[in-house]
């Protein structure tokens, strides 16, 4: 099953249909879940007829309607997705395992850091986060890695710890806590 694209050049794969369908299904699923969760606070309010659920439920219905309308219109238009048009020459193959791993790491690495930072403290973990992000941004020169990490870390310490006294997490594990406090002390020397 193929469809003709609007530019009339290439056959349109069935995947386009399933993509639009999946998009609608995700929206309907979100709307369904949100609507079902409104039951947990479905209590009467003496001065207000629609209660606490009226507004969010109306929004869920409107979003569900919008998702269905979008799907119907996409079927009518059946036009090519913008990403296809934006494909550029010189791009690395998206299927290359290294590229895929790097792309995944861009999203996973910050989440891993978020898990660790409150435990080991911001002051210890921040340089590793900066260096990790630089590596993900394909900065490979050790000199650049060290210099940029040191510059960003120093600026954060100078502005937020020394000048603005922002209380950033110092860690929940005792050994790390002590080191974090020592770094803060170092940053505030002379104050």
């Amino acid at each position, binding site marked *: 099953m193929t469809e*003709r694209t*609007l*530019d*009339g050049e290439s056959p349109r794969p069935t995947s386009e249909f399933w993509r639009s369908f999946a998009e609608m299904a995700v*929206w309907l699923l979100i709307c369904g*879940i*949100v609507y*079902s*969760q*409104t039951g*947990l*606070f479905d*209590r009467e*309010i*003496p*001065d*207000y*007829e*629609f209660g*606490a659920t009226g*507004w*969010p439920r109306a*929004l*869920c219905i*409107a*979003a569900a309607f*919008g*998702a269905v*309308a*979008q799907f119907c*219109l996409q079927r009518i*238009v059946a036009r090519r997705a913008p*990403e296809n048009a934006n494909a*550029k020459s*010189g*791009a*690395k193959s*998206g299927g290359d395992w290294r*590229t895929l791993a*790097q*792309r995944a790491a861009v*999203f996973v690495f*910050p*989440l891993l850091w*978020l898990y660790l930072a409150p435990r080991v403290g911001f002051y210890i973990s*921040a340089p590793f*986060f*900066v260096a990790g*992000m*630089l590596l*993900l*941004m*394909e*900065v490979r020169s050790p000199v650049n890695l060290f210099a940029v990490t040191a510059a*960003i870390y120093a*600026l*954060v310490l100078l502005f*937020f710890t020394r000048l603005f006294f*922002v209380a950033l*997490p110092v860690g929940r594990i005792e050994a790390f806590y002590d080191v974090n406090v020592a770094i803060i002390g170092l940053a505030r020397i002379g104050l």
Partner: protein
Amino acid sequence: MDMFIQGTMNLFGDWNTLLIFAMGLLGGMIFGATPGVNMLTLGAVVLPFTITMLPEHAIMLFSVIYCAGVFGGAITAILFNIPGAPENAPTCFDGYPMTLRGESGKAIGAAVSCSAIGGLASAILMMSATGAIAGWAIRAFGPQEIFALIFFGLAVSASIGAATLWKGWLSVLAGLLIATIGTDPVGGIARFNEGSLLGLSFHSYYLSAGIHFIPIILGFFAVSEVFAQAVNIAMGTRERPKAGLEFPSAAEFWRVRWTMLRSVGIGFFAGILPGIGATLAAFLGYSQAQRWSRNRQNFGKGEIEGVVASETANNAATGAAMIPLLALGLPGGALTAMMLGIFQIHGMEPGPLIFINSGELVWITFAAMFWANLLIIFLGWLQTKTVVHLLRIPFRWLAPGILMLAIVGAYALRNLFIDVWVMFIAGIAGYLLRRTGYSAAGIVLGLILGKLGESAFTKSMQLMDYNFLGFFERPIAAVLIVLGVGAVILSIAGEFRRVEQQKASLD
């Protein structure tokens, strides 16, 4: 005029006052132009220090930070596609494509000049008729009109930044839904703070307080942009922006004179209404510029008129936002709410009597806003010539710094690490939504106006005894609703017309 001269003399005649003015101006411009932090961060940091200041110095400082911060936010929007504040979001749509074309200087130059023009016009209007305008706005604008205006604003602005009309609407609806998390505006019942699905359940005190818009904005704009660029680097498809120092020509300004004038009107009108503020002003200014422009097909691709429209409108709202604050004690946004806090710290009550009891405070503030906007032209020109060189620093070096600032900005808001989680989750969601043609700006618009819209709707329903036709008994509300519905119908018709045209070209 005498009062203005007196205010100016008080401002420039005392070294302390002048120093505070200069610090506010530079601080607002620097914080506004630094990705990850914004004028609210500066306001929150400075607020405790205002206890020891004279009240007129403290209010003047915040009003200057407000003017300079709104302008500064345009710079990051233009250079990095990361708006410094929600009101700068529409500036990204044309400012960043201009940067990619090597016209960053031109875009920033337009933003500088139009921010100053919008701000100056607003300051002059504010000085001329604060009392009368505030009185009119409050008499004419009840909950029905506020709701109708939000409906109208969303109706005309929803599709901005999205691939299609429906994606724009769905983005706004997503933002409105996120805004329902927290307590409901009438009964104070906690919503979505607990959940139960497939036998799993959770309860969160954090969600009882609602999701703050700052981590969401940082996530949708700053974090998702860094993610997008990092993925482009991994794929080898990153387009490198080019630094350009060219300033817009006088002819270019003359070409967009009507857009400027329209945006001043829109910005000022939106600014005087409590809570509506600069964000809706910028979106409305941009959408109306697109509607009336001869080059509407170039909007979103680097049209200078788009930058002019949004920057004029958001700065025109800054002066106007002071009107309900000073005359009625009603803050129009987060920074004006901080100013209300300063009044309370110093045991003062803003309202009509403030013009009689604290004339010096009022006029030093008005004069400071006027001169701040005038100085923005000069300092902004200098900034145009210097800040553009930031583009010469490789983005891969700047990105971790931007993330670090965003992390500190999100955390410092309430000293909660969960805000940083929210920011990164919003960043991932923003990245995915942008890839699929949804509008991060639309979600943020929905999120910011959601609570206000629901509150106005509930009050309207109570006042009108749940009769939806009651909106049509109030002329302003009726006109706005009809215009909003008309805009929706026209947009849908336009979408169908485009489909037909595409089909015809295929045949």
